[in-house]
Structures are given as structure tokens and as C-alpha cells.
């Protein structure tokens, strides 16, 4: 029973990683760049939600929507100002720019909201669902997190596969040149991708803070790195891959903590990543692309 409860904890943590990883993987799939500022966009989302809930006393749903709108705008603005001018530059320049944006957001947040730790209010009733005569208890928060993750995943898959914009995104991800020739506005598609990825980041932020309620300007860095790992693990560029990678990473992390050592859990997580990449360099569900000459 203990194993089952660790597994559920792992799935809950993994769900949050998966939602953040979706942002990384979508942007990579379409713009072919690693947006390292993603974790920090999430942090901004967390602060917006915090102030909406705490200072203005808005209802939870309104706060979440507000925070998603804020990060959506932020994502689009960052893309326009920092990444768009570098569309033709080498991938390394874009990567460094992304790290710069990440620091800009962290320090900006420190300046605006100070580095003192804040505590995120509890948004979901504490308490738990008891199964098997109380032997297994699953908190409502865990249930909400896992449900939200599945919902986001399903909506996103439907969007990508069933809508016109989704089809355009897939086209851009396969071949930007050909997509342009077919009349797709690639810049607009990239903006939309950033908007969606950043909006989802706000949702991830709220779920993350509901479970781990301390809020600081460096909030996004560690989950950001873990989610990036999850995206690579699952095959960067692949949406189901991010989902699978996120969940597996969460589960491995929790089980390693529980059964091996709390000190070694991160080392184990990254060791598994290395092994997966050695065996399958494109990640679990990554597509193998052949270099065009």
C-alpha cells in the first residue's frame, strides 16, 4: 500500500513536470529552440495568481484565468522582442538569449516582489480520499493535479490534430519552408505556440504552488530544469513524449527517494536520463530526423 501511495505521489509530481514540459516541447517542435525562460514565465504566472488571490481576493478560477492571460501576453512579448530578431541566427545564440531572458525575469521579479518567500494560499480543500478502508489516502489536491494534467493533454492533442491552426503548427514543425510556400504565416504560428505554451505554464504554476506552497523568484528554475529533462526524456518535440517523460520522471524521483535514498534521488533521475539517451538518442517517443543536405 505504501508503494501505491508513493506511486500516486509520483504521478502527481510528474503531472506538474509534464505540463511544464509541454511548453518546452511545443516551442522546440515548432520554433526549434529551447526556451529556457519557460520556467521563469511559470514563476511570473505563480506571482500573478498569488497577488490575485491574496491581495485582491479574487476567486480561484478568475485568478487562474488572469494568470494564464498574463503569462500568455508575456510569452508573446518575449518571443517578439527577444527571439524573433534572432530567427536566422545560430541556435546557440538563441539558447544564450533564452538564458538571458530567464535571468532578466528572475531579477525583475526580485526587484518587483522582493526575494522574501511568500506562501501560496491553499486553493483546494485539504483532506483526502480514503480507499481500502483508509489504508490508502489520496489528497484531493493530487486528484485535481492529475486530472488537470490529463485534461490539458487531451485538449492539446485535439487542438493539434483537429484544428486548422493545429495543422499549420504540424506543418511548420515538419518543414518551415514548405509551410511558408503553402501560405502559412510561420511567424504567426510561432507566436501562437509561445502563447499556448506560456498560458499552460501559468496553470502548471498554480498546480505546483498548490502542492508546494512557497513562492520565490527562483521558483521556476528547478522545476524548469526537471521539466526540460522530462521533455528530452520523452523525446523533445513530441507532445505525448512530454507527457510520458514528465510522469516517468516524477515517479522515478519519488520511488528513488522512497526506496533508495533521499540524497541520491536527483542523481538517479539524471542517470536514468543518460541511459535512455544512450540507448535511444531521440528520447522515448522522439522522431528520428535525417539531416537534409
Amino acid at each position: 500500500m505504501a508503494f501505491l501511495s508513493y506511486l500516486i505521489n509520483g504521478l502527481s509530481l510528474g503531472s506538474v513536470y509534464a505540463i511544464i514540459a509541454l511548453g518546452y516541447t511545443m516551442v522546440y517542435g515548432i520554433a526549434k529552440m529551447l526556451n529556457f525562460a519557460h520556467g521563469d514565465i511559470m514563476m511570473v504566472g505563480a506571482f500573478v495568481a498569488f497577488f490575485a488571490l491574496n491581495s485582491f481576493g479574487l476567486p480561484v478560477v478568475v485568478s487562474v484565468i488572469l494568470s494564464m492571460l498574463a503569462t500568455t501576453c508575456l510569452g508573446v512579448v518575449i518571443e517578439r522582442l527577444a527571439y524573433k530578431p534572432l530567427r536566422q541566427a545560430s541556435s546557440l545564440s538563441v539558447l544564450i538569449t533564452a538564458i538571458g531572458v530567464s535571468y532578466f525575469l528572475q531579477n525583475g521579479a526580485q526587484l518587483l516582489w522582493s526575494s522574501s518567500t511568500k506562501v501560496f494560499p491553499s486553493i483546494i480543500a485539504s483532506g483526502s480520499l480514503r480507499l481500502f478502508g483508509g489504508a490508502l489516502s489520496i489528497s484531493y489536491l493530487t486528484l485535481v493535479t492529475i486530472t488537470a494534467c490529463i485534461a490539458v493533454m487531451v485538449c492539446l492533442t485535439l487542438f493539434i490534430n483537429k484544428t486548422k491552426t493545429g495543422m499549420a503548427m504540424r506543418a511548420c514543425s515538419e518543414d518551415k519552408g514548405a509551410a511558408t510556400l503553402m501560405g502559412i504565416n510561420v511567424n504567426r504560428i510561432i507566436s501562437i505556440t509561445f502563447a499556448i505554451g506560456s498560458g499552460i505554464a501559468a496553470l502548471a504554476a498554480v498546480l505546483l504552488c498548490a502542492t508546494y506552497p512557497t513562492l520565490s523568484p527562483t521558483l521556476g528554475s528547478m522545476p524548469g530544469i526537471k521539466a526540460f529533462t522530462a521533455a528530452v526524456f520523452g523525446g523533445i518535440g513530441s507532445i505525448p513524449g512530454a507527457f510520458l517523460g514528465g510522469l516517468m520522471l516524477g515517479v522515478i524521483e519519488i520511488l528513488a527517494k522512497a526506496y533508495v535514498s533521499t540524497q541520491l534521488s536527483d542523481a538517479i533521475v539524471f542517470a536514468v536520463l543518460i541511459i535512455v539517451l544512450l540507448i535511444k538518442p531521440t528520447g522515448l517517443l522522439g522522431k528520428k530526423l535525417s539531416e537534409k543536405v
Partner: protein
Amino acid sequence: MKFEKMLKGGLAAVMAMSLVACSGSSDSSAPAADTSTGSDTTETTVAAAGAFKLGGSGPLTGGASVYGQAVKNAAELAVEEINAKGGVQFEFVMEDDEHDTEKAVNAYAALKDWGMQVSLLTVTSAPGAAVAPLYKEDSTFALTPSGSSLAIIYADLINLADPYGNVFQMCFTDPNQGVASADYLSTHTNLGSKVAIIYKNDDNYSTGIYEKFVNEAADKGLEVVYAGTFAGEDNDFNVQLSQAQANGADILFLPIYYQPASTILKQAKDMDYAPTFFGVDGMDGILAMEGFDTSLAEGVYLLTPFSADASDDLTKNFVSNYQNNYGDTPNQFAADAYDCVYAIAQALEASGATADMSAAEINDLLVEQFTSMTFNGLTGTDVTWNTNGEVSKAPKAVIIENGVYVGVED
């Protein structure tokens, strides 16, 4: 193989970022605190003729500013009171070191240029350890209110030998908090008998207390049933808490700072685990966190040398004066600083030092006084110091009730 190249580039960047994240976390392991106090003044001078020049540095801005501001306020208050009495007179300057070792060294240089004769060293440990050798070299007496690391008083940390001899502490050293906690728990068996510990294994403060506590617990018949660790900015404690619960722990000892402790309290509540939570001085500050649901901390014990609700006259006067002047309830850092200034005044008075003496002459007199005198203050009665500079006083336990500290009567 463009894809692989990008991936490699990406992984390299992740490593770089995680390095940054690590160095960042060592920073943030220092108590992050409210910076909204917002005063930009880095120094304040309380002028007086024929007065001893008392200096010190601390984080007046930045993440740990809540501590620096508390020390500055309380020290100023004590200086004002002492100057008003006649007798020993002080002129006090506090420099800002932003809890940064390099800035602390600069602050020390600025204070020496000003002509500092006696010092409060630093507020936080790492800067204190950086400047302590300079105080030794220049023979300037220092008494730190809140620098608890052993590195502040010993030059040779590995063998705990070669104490500076003229750097003294008003607060407990980190290991002594571990001893005091084990003492308290072994003599108050009503709290429980099976102890679980969660500590931060990349933080000296936390591991120092943990190791000493475990050693002492074995001698005192306390049963430690589980010890879990975390590092950096980890904030998932479900596994550690489940295992503590599974091992039947009825006391959870938390030798950590209040930020992770607040998460532990919440996660324990979410899983219906309610042991007696027992913290040390790093827990001080939890009630002041913005947005913290204080009902989570209900019944939390912490060992701290000072509680603002104590009923003795000294504490009452101090708390009301402090509140009148600064509009805030003083914390233990403030109390330690207040005691520091009074202890220095008592020693100066007894030694017959005068303000025209050099720092080195005053240093010799004060070292002699401090190793022989007994001091009664806010943070303890019959306080004494050994020749290494370590303080000896009895810790007080407080319990959080209805969102405030309440002293525990034995």
C-alpha cells in the same frame, strides 16, 4: 545530425543552469526575509562626545535584511538607553554587508577608517567567518549577536582548535542548538519518544545541528527512528513525511530554516500526520511569512533564547520600547543585539576602559572581562563565556499558540 547537436547544446546548457541553480540555492539557503523594511540608510550615527566607537555590519538590504534591520534597530535602542543613563557612552555605526562575505570585508575596512574600537562583528554567519580573522589581526574586540557558526570563533574548524580568542558570540553555536534540543526532548518525554528528523544536507547550519543532535540523542536515550534529507530548493517532502509516519515518529525535529519548514507543515497536514514539530532558531520567522496560514504552525515548538511574550520586566520594557520606535515586535535577533550592547557596556564599565584608549587596549580589557563576568539579559540569565568565545546560557522553549509565541513553563 543537427538534432543531436542541438540536444547536446541543450544538455550543456542544462548543466550550466543547474550549476547556477546550485550556487543560487546556497545563497537562498540563507534566511530569505522581508526586504520591505526598505530603509536605504546604510549607516546611522548616534553621536556623543567622549564615546566608544561601536561598529558592526549586517544585511540591511537584500534577502536577509529582516535580520540586519532587527539587529540595527535593537542595537540603536540599547545605545540610546545606555547613553541616556550617563556612564559609558557609545557612538554606533552599522554598515550594510548584504549577507555577502566580500562586502563584509569592505564594511570592516570602512569601520576601521571611521575609528571603530568595539564591534558587533556581523549579523550573519558567512560574512562573520570572513571578517573574524581581521578582528584577530587588528586586535579589535567583537561580540556577534547572531552569527552562530563555529567558523566565527575558530580559525581551525576541522580540529576545533585555534580560537580567535577576541571574537565572542551572544547566540548559541549551531552544534549547541543540537545539544540543547536533545536535552529538552529527553527531559520532556510528554512530547513523545520516537524522533524523526528532516534536515537539509547541503547546508552547514542544518547538518551541524543534526549531527550533534544524533550524537546526544543516543547518550540521552532518545530514539531516532528516521532521518531524511533534502537539498537545494526541493519542496516535495511527501516521501520523508510518509516514512517518518511509517516509522511511528511522534516528534519531528526540523533543524532547518522556516521556508522549507512551512512546506513541511502543510504537506504533513495534507496527509493527516500530526507529530509534535520541534524547530530551532531557524524556525523563527515562520509566522511573518506573507500569506502563511498560521494555523498550520499551531503547536509547533521551537527552541529560542527569547520570546517576546515573556512576562519579566526586562522583556516587557524592551518589547514595548521596540514597538514604539519601530512599529514591529522584536525577534530573537533583536534581543541578541540588545544584549550584546548591554554586555559590552557592562564589561567596559567594569574594566574601567576609557574612550581615548586604542582598540587593542580595549580588546585586552574586554577579553579579560568577558571570560570572567556573568551577564543577565533578555536572552538568558547567568550568561557566561568560555575563553573560546562560546556562550553558555539556557535555551527557552516556546510554543506557537493562536499565531503567537508563548513561553513554555516547565
